[in-house]
């Protein structure tokens, strides 16, 4: 078993992880990043719409308006101070991205171009065609190269190692060799992304968005919160769940039913639009996105990726055809509980990005606020983790003997089938609308599956690049998180933002708070 030290260890090389790495490095810490993929392949590259900042380049805007919109969309459960920080830092965050070389689209006046996303009172999202996340992520990666930050690829997080509620490193599975490795660090930042793949094929997310960091953080004693708030993006391609950016509606795209009628305000926040689509489809209607009237020139300039994907996956050309769509799971508002310094309840363990809950999205995230979050809080987490490391001496801790990760016997139950069924069930029962009964039924299934997880396992016995094993580990993380999502959703007997209960359709003052949960169940 290898052992290797750094001041700060960052797990995850998406936008949040790389921003944190850069700022920890700038603070003078030795930094190491580990990722289960390669540095530019994370979920961040899929972000299309933009990053919010009240620059007022395309119409009047203000930080106050940004704060007000974010608060409103959060439906009463957000930390106003955190939102204030997020929105007031936004212009600096975008300016910083621009200064390091992000190729933002521009206006005639040589300013960063901005467009309107749902729930925003002004064109506020700075974008780079519909490749905003890709271009931000790659530029961050280039900065990490410049800073000569060590990035170790293809290492799967197994455990956050802590003792006496204080972190001292992580253990990982090296995917290439099958070896378990241990990395010591004075502080650890978890930046591993969300858990939308709980919905399996009913998610816009990449296949690796399996909440590994959240599951490990809970096991290490950290708490998570607001797990029931899962955002459904209104417009994913019908057959493949591939995302069509909200900017298509921001630019004037319509939602139509089979009769060709509009049925909702396309620019309302995502939770409202997703529900409108849900109820329209319940009437037996097919739902389409219509951007034909925007014209070929506009589509090729602003939405080139969308045109390519619609052609490939739906065999239609949005310039001439309606785009068949459905809402699918897109972003998980819940995450690891952190304080105003991005630190979890485990000393020295920090979290940032979609895996964390900085309480800025509340019950429904605004489009364009997640790329923003990863810059603003990524910097904060990186700086604070570096400061923490300076004040700490490395603990002398005996290494644990690693558990075997798989057995020699062949599994009796195929976890791939369980995973697929669970995804279907979650989409149907824990999706855009929920009831006590639908949630309870699902919890029963989850409990049953958790009991027989020892009958599941891997058929591939190779130690070399065993994706069967990795997928099984990811599945177990999702299964663990699914119970928490359900407990929180059952507990919350009201409707708020993305959590809509058909048996409690109104917001209730009694639930105007966060749902915080630890290893042992709902705590507040």
């Amino acid at each position: 078993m290898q052992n290797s030290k750094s001041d700060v260890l960052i797990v995850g090389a998406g936008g949040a992880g790389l921003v944190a790495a850069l700022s920890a490095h700038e603070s003078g810490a030795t930094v190491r990043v580990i990722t289960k993929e390669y540095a530019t392949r994370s979920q961040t590259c899929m972000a299309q719409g933009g990053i919010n900042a009240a620059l007022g380049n395309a119409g009047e805007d203000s930080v106050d308006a940004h704060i007000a919109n974010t608060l409103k969309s959060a439906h009463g459960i957000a930390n106003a101070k955190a939102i204030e920080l997020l929105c007031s830092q936004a212009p600096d965050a975008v300016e910083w991205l621009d200064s390091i070389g992000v190729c933002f689209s521009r206006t005639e006046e040589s300013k960063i171009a901005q467009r309107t996303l749902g729930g925003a009172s002004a064109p506020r999202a700075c974008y780079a065609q519909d490749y905003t996340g890709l271009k931000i992520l790659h530029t961050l990666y280039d900065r990490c190269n410049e800073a000569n930050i060590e990035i170790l690829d293809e290492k799967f997080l197994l455990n956050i190692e802590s003792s006496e509620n204080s972190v001292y490193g992580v253990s990982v599975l090296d995917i290439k060799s099958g070896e378990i490795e241990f990395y010591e660090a004075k502080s650890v930042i978890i930046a591993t992304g969300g858990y939308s793949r709980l919905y399996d094929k009913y998610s816009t997310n990449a296949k690796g968005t399996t909440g590994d960091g959240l599951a490990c953080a809970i096991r290490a004693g950290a708490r998570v919160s607001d797990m029931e708030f899962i955002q459904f993006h209104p417009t994913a391609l019908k057959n493949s769940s591939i995302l069509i950016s909200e900017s298509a509606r921001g630019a004037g795209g319509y939602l139509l039913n089979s009769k060709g009628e509009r049925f909702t305000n396309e620019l309302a926040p995502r939770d409202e639009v997703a529900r409108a689509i849900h109820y329209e489809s319940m009437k037996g209607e097919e739902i389409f996105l219509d951007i034909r009237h925007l014209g070929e020139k506009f589509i090729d300039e602003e939405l080139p990726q969308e045109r390519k994907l619609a052609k490939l996956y739906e065999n239609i050309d949005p310039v001439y055809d309606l785009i068949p769509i459905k809402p699918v799971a897109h972003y998980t508002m819940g995450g690891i509980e952190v304080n105003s310094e991005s630190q979890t309840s485990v000393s020295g363990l920090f979290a940032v990005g979609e895996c964390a809950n900085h309480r800025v999205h509340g019950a429904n995230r605004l489009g364009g606020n997640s790329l923003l979050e990863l810059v603003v809080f990524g910097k904060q987490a990186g700086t604070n983790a570096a400061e923490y490391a300076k004040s700490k001496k490395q603990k002398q801790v005996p290494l644990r003997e690693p558990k075997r990760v798989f057995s020699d016997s062949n599994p009796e139950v195929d976890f791939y089938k369980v995973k697929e069924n669970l995804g279907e069930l979650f989409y149907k029962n824990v999706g855009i609308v929920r009831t006590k009964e639908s949630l309870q039924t699902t919890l029963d299934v989850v409990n049953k599956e958790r009991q027989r997880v020892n009958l599941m396992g891997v058929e591939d016995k190779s130690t070399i690049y065993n994706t069967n094993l990795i997928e099984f580990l990811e599945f177990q993380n999702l299964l663990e998180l699914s119970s928490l999502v359900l407990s929180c959703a059952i507990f919350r007997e009201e409707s708020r933002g993305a959590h809509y209960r058909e048996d409690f359709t109104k917001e209730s003052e009694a639930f105007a708070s966060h749902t915080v949960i630890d290893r042992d169940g709902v705590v507040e």
Partner: protein
Amino acid sequence: MKIKIQRETLEEFEVDVHDATLLTVLNKIKVEQDKTLTFSSGCRSSVCGSCSVRVNAKEVLACSYKLQEGDVVQPLRNAPVIRDLVVDMKKSYETNRRAKAWLSRITGDVSLSIEHEKINEIQSDCILCGSCYSACPVFAVNDEFLGPFALTRAWKYTSDKRQNETKEIVDVIQTNGVWSCTLCNECTLVCPQNISSKADIEKLRSKSAMAGYSDPSFANFGSFGGGVSFDGSPSF
């Protein structure tokens, strides 16, 4: 539909699909037929660059290629195969660091026009899938060659108006860099993002010439030296 996949040997699989992407089919085979089948994938929408492979000897992204009867699927070339369709990208990824593809100094006081942004818009679409390294005949014989995507990145950062010092990059691309390319254009033909690294390399050559560098292979032709090129016009 029957297809062949390169593993330790070329193995045939039969799948019942129509109008499906290769990635969909690989997933289907893994879940339904052989859980040991090994490949990489991520976003399934052509932006993460994880699933590049070769089909019938041409580089494609598995998520954007529609499978045909009789297709032969193989891993990328010019990188060590770890298992089945998965290769080790370490060497090609490292070229980005070697090419010093970044802004050398951050000033934050430059504003870009639409025109400035368009100069390298397409180069900034690169997803580092590695198709170009697989297709590159120079990288095949010289693994110290900086290679297509790193040179495209070098062009991106030298052409960026925010870059106030291009010397660092221009210096570093002289050896095993722009002059080692044969301009065969294979990289362009396989790029899923329609980037032409060959064209970027040509632009970097002009930039190098303007900085006083010349093609080292011409340096051997003593009689042509002295600042005059073949057509008699003075060279830079």
